[in-house]
């Protein structure tokens, strides 16, 4: 029982970065834009998120306000990069897959460059502490599993219903879904499709930036070049797996993270299994998951990846 509890207690925080980035990517894709540059945005978010608290505290503890400033900066740069991506793929209508790779390289490279200049070597920071919820965290089993986490963990899980509400119950969500599914129809009824796509890219970018900052401020509590380790790409795959629905995406993120926690726990038990194969597991899982989530586009954003131009007649 303790073993299971520890896996959940470990796995749930692991899922946060994936979940935030996936929710962001979900908005991108729902609006019709496939942003493979998520990884690069997360890297920039991770760097910028830790920059302020690190600079102020020089590795020592800082007041919470600086941490929050770090998170906001990460979201800001994410939104900015999302808009920049929009310029390339929405305004100029460049093919989104390859452009996303460009954004990924740019983001990862820029984060590494800036990190070396402003921080230097690997420096750990106190980051944001866990915030066990009084009383609730004392409950056996449920306490450690659900109520003994970082504040961002609670916030992220609250964002799942929020994202659902925004996507399905607000006028903006309606426009996002229409723009990604049938941009011509949306356009004919007065929705400014490309504007909506830019907005979605900003939102998606901000969430990806936040996801990166969560890694550097809460999970790893430092920055390194490999901090994102493909989570951005996995997040993109999770959106397919989750059929562009927040709840299913959360399920996917949890599945992945629990598998990862299980792998770590097994390692901790000293079972002789090559470490590298354990690390491969999530990546291999992504491929398997993608192989079995085909045909799902039918009820998703059918115009995904297609630039919109009113005058280009097909």
């Amino acid at each position, binding site marked *: 029982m303790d073993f299971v509890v520890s896996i959940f207690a470990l796995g749930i925080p692991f899922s946060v970065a994936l979940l935030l980035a996936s929710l962001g990517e979900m908005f991108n894709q729902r609006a019709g834009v496939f942003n493979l540059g998520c990884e690069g945005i997360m890297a920039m978010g991770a760097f910028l998120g830790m920059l302020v608290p690190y600079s102020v505290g020089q590795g020592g503890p800082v007041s919470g306000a600086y941490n929050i400033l770090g998170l906001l900066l990460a979201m800001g740069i994410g939104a900015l990069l999302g808009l920049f991506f929009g310029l390339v793929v929405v305004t100029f209508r460049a093919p989104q897959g390859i452009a996303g790779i460009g954004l990924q*390289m740019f983001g990862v490279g820029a984060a590494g460059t800036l990190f070396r200049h402003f921080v230097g070597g690997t420096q750990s920071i106190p980051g944001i502490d866990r915030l066990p919820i009084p009383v609730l965290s004392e409950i056996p089993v449920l306490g450690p599993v659900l109520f003994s986490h970082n504040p961002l963990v609670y916030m992220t899980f609250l964002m799942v219903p929020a994202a659902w509400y925004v996507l399905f119950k607000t006028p903006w969500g309606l426009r996002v879904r229409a723009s990604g599914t049938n941009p011509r129809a949306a356009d004919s009824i007065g929705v400014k499709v490309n504007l909506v796509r830019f907005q979605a890219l900003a939102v998606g970018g901000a969430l990806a930036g936040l996801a990166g900052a969560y890694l550097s401020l809460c999970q790893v509590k430092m920055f390194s070049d490999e901090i994102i380790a493909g989570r951005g790409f996995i997040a993109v795959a999770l959106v397919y797996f989750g059929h562009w629905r927040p709840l299913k995406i959360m399920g996917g993120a949890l599945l992945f993270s629990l598998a990862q926690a299980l792998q770590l726990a097994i390692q901790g038990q000293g079972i002789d299994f090559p470490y590298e194969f354990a690390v491969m597991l999530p990546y291999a899982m*992504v*491929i398997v998951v993608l192989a079995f989530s085909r045909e799902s586009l039918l009820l998703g954003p059918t115009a995904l990846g297609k630039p919109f131009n009113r005058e280009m007649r097909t």
Partner: protein
Amino acid sequence: MTKQFKALYKTVVILLAAAAAMLLGALILWTIGADVTKTYSVIILEPLKNKIEIGEVLIRAIPLTIIALGISVAYRSGIINIGAEGQMAMGILAATAVALALPGLPKYALLPLAMIAGTLGGAAWGFIPGILKAKLHVSELLSTVMLNYIAAQFYTFCLRGPMLDPAEITMGSGTPQSMRLTKAIWLDRLVPGTRIHTGVYIALAMAFIIWLLLWRTSWGYKMRAAGASERAARYGGIGVAGYLVVAMMISGAFAGLAGAVEIAGVHRRAIEGITGGYGFSGIVVALFGGLHPAGIIPASFFFGLLIVGADMTQRMVGVPANMVLVLQGIIILVIVATRMVLANPYLMERVWRRYQKLTRRDKEA
């Protein structure tokens, strides 16, 4: 629309694109307080100042050329290969395994065998995303990225385990690397005092082969047709899905070969970090070279320069070497956007009309 206007339009667009790329790079350089012009001039000029550095540029251009050739085959066939990094790693492992298993073979047997092994290793790793795309419509963008991570782990596993240098075990330092490979697999050095090796010839030969394949054979013709217009290719009776798999395997094979050449020519053993971003740089080289061997060769020299130059900026102007990744990312973004701008007749027509108005007004004035 006049011919002169079309040429002018094209030139202006490309110049604007180049300026935008430089500016975006400068943005990061300004942020870290670096001297922009000095940084760019160090990157581009410093590696050309002496023989050794030119050699270093060339030995980076070799794998870049080979990988970019493979990526261009895939790209022209309508499938994007982001997985060269992993395919290269698999090529290195396969070539190393052959060299370790058959140390007694003479050079004329072992070297080709190792190259073939590397090629097959990469091809096998390219087959997976190819078949997944053709049969199950799995996005090759995601599957190749995932296969990169898997290959990287497998690579480390091999170097820490089955292929680990016995000397490392006795010394106890445990650096993950294979033992130094037998001389029979070494590619000869060409210019004394530099590391330039005969891989140059392999790269040039491969460029020729790719050119032959794409523009002189019916296979290449059909692959290009499948990539240029899937619909028309299907109409023309071309089995598009099959060619996707073939293209991805060729692409992987080239990355694998690049890996084999890299250990035989430069490192002479498998160690960590050999792939070092070549797979991603190869994408930039392929795009920058216009997806054509004749463009890829100079492009790979240029990006070899960038990589070596970026190593020097740390020492000379305090700009971290990661800057090269930034530049490559920017170049991809700018190239793909520029290609679309150049291919947009609506935009060109609009500019043309405005241009006409302007010139008319000039004449009246």
